[in-house]
């Protein structure tokens, strides 16, 4: 069971995890090369800047497709698509795409 986290708290925790490099990336046995966090073209700072710009209307929450009790937070801003969730105390990024 994971604690319900609203937009503001989700934003704060995602930024903190990126800033402190305490996040993990969910994988399916392989490195998903489309996730821009794996490349050299986008840094954690770039992703933080996008998240900072996000407002409530850029945020959506959906249950994780495998574990319905986990809320996946989705941010869409300026063509960016960022998806993450929390398994306390960890922050997992599913996607950072453009």
């Amino acid at each position, binding site marked *: 069971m994971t604690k319900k986290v609203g937009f503001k708290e989700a934003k704060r925790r995602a930024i903190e995890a990126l800033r402190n490099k305490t996040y993990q990336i969910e994988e399916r046995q392989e490195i998903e090369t489309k996730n821009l966090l794996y490349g050299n*073209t986008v840094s954690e700072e770039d992703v933080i800047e996008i998240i900072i710009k996000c407002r409530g209307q850029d945020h959506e929450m959906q249950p994780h497709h495998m*574990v319905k009790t*986990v809320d996946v937070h989705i941010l869409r801003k300026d063509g960016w698509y960022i998806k993450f969730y929390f398994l306390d105390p960890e922050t997992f990024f599913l996607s950072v795409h453009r």
Partner: protein
Amino acid sequence: MKLYSAGDKSKAICETCQDMVETTFLYRDVPFDDGTGKVKDILASVCDRCGEVVAIPAQSLPAIRRAREKVEVSLEAQVPASDIEILDAAATRISERASVRHRKFLLAFYVRKMARDPQGAERIKQLFLEAKAAKPKAKVKVPRKRLSFKVSHDFEEEFAAFAKISGLKKTQVLRGVVREIRSDLVAPEYPASLPQLRELVATMES
């Protein structure tokens, strides 16, 4: 920054087990999903039930990025010889030891700069049209020459995405970028970008 060590415990969602699982951090070889190879011996979060890699901690990303850099692809284009001359002129401004790799550095620098600019797509279209309209003063035929670079997979993807949103072909983007280099770095007597570019090149060459 929190660093995990081999043997540390965590949890994750496992695709194979379709469940939230306990995991252990272990060193594993993890392949890229596009078949371009694998990263050897990185710390990964491994499912305690099925033994599959289920997550990658941030501390393993620099190793993945280095492995990704080594995957190189060719970027090729046929451009007017005058474009090559512009690139070479710009290269001699940024380094006393200008060589072919400085051409690549300049193109990469300007492509990335423009790709990140919200107005970049519109600007590159305009620049390409200017490049296309520029004719030699006399009616002479300007030969076309081949530009060829080995670039990282990431750069190629960023370049292709920029071409797509601009609605241009890759060669057209390159021609627009050369036009930008001409007006930003070659034409001005004291280009504003020059100190930064010289500094970058000097750092890379040190």
